[in-house]
């Protein structure tokens, strides 16, 4: 009777000795993370226009940038100047748009909007403050001279870049 008890106690002691801990390691390093928060949708407020503005029935594409180190990156966001897919178009399309910093994790990031540089269809932001910022991109397309867009699906690409300095 005593022998099995001793054996059981010894086995339990061994099981206890094998209990282990697991560590979780992580590193926070300088990086820029581009997150597609919201894919846009074109609204069709009138026959000849497509627009991502909510007032035109569209959805504004939103891109979030997470910046770990200040002054390490420049953000470049380009609104489209052509459709990536569309029905066959026989007339010219006029493109307009822009990019603005909307929500931000730090109020000093409002400087991104005042110091932004715009050229062609690209807006450049100096990411001088660390944190998270949501950039809202508007895109509008007008077809010919008050010509109605043919029925079908339209897609366009917004390019979000993060360039190390």
């Amino acid at each position: 009777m005593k022998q099995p008890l001793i054996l059981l106690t010894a086995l339990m002691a061994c099981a206890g000795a094998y209990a282990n801990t697991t560590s979780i390691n992580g590193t926070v390093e300088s990086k820029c993370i581009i997150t597609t928060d919201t894919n846009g949708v074109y609204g069709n407020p009138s026959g000849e226009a497509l627009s991502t503005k909510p007032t035109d029935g569209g959805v504004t594409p939103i891109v979030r940038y997470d910046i770990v180190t200040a002054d390490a990156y420049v953000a470049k966001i380009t609104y489209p100047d052509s459709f990536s897919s569309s029905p066959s178009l026989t007339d010219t399309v006029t493109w307009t748009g822009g990019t603005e910093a909307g929500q931000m994790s730090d109020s000093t990031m409002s400087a991104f909007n005042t110091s932004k540089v715009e050229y062609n269809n690209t807006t450049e932001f100096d990411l001088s403050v660390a944190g998270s910022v949501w950039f809202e991109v508007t895109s509008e397309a007008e077809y010919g001279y008050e010509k109605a867009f043919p029925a079908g699906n339209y897609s366009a690409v917004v390019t979000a870049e993060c360039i190390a300095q």
Partner: protein
Amino acid sequence: MRLIIILLATIGGYVNAHQWTPTHPEMRPSHIQGLYTTEMHLFNSRKEISYYSIRVFDKDWDVVPFAAAPSLVRANYLSHHYSDIYIKKSDLKRAHYICSKSKILSTVKDPSIIASRICSKIKK
């Protein structure tokens, strides 16, 4: 507060991001004479993207020849990918940026798609 947001973003809790690190990679001599190398890390948490292209540019955004296996990376959702980039010693001075760019398949039919490109600057 800012740190918490960054940590949440870095650790997880979102599903649509593109990461490309390090910010300033350092080129070092490789085991092949005349070639310099560095390791880049790609993390794909963009569900709609499965491929990323890698390119090397000079400071004027002209393409610099390089080798990577492969230069078109298939990265599944939430996967990590490590790429060894090789640049010739003769091109090392003008090589400035190592970039990864999301490739959008023609089957993706979102009305407004976002292409992401992140460029690291080579440490000189």
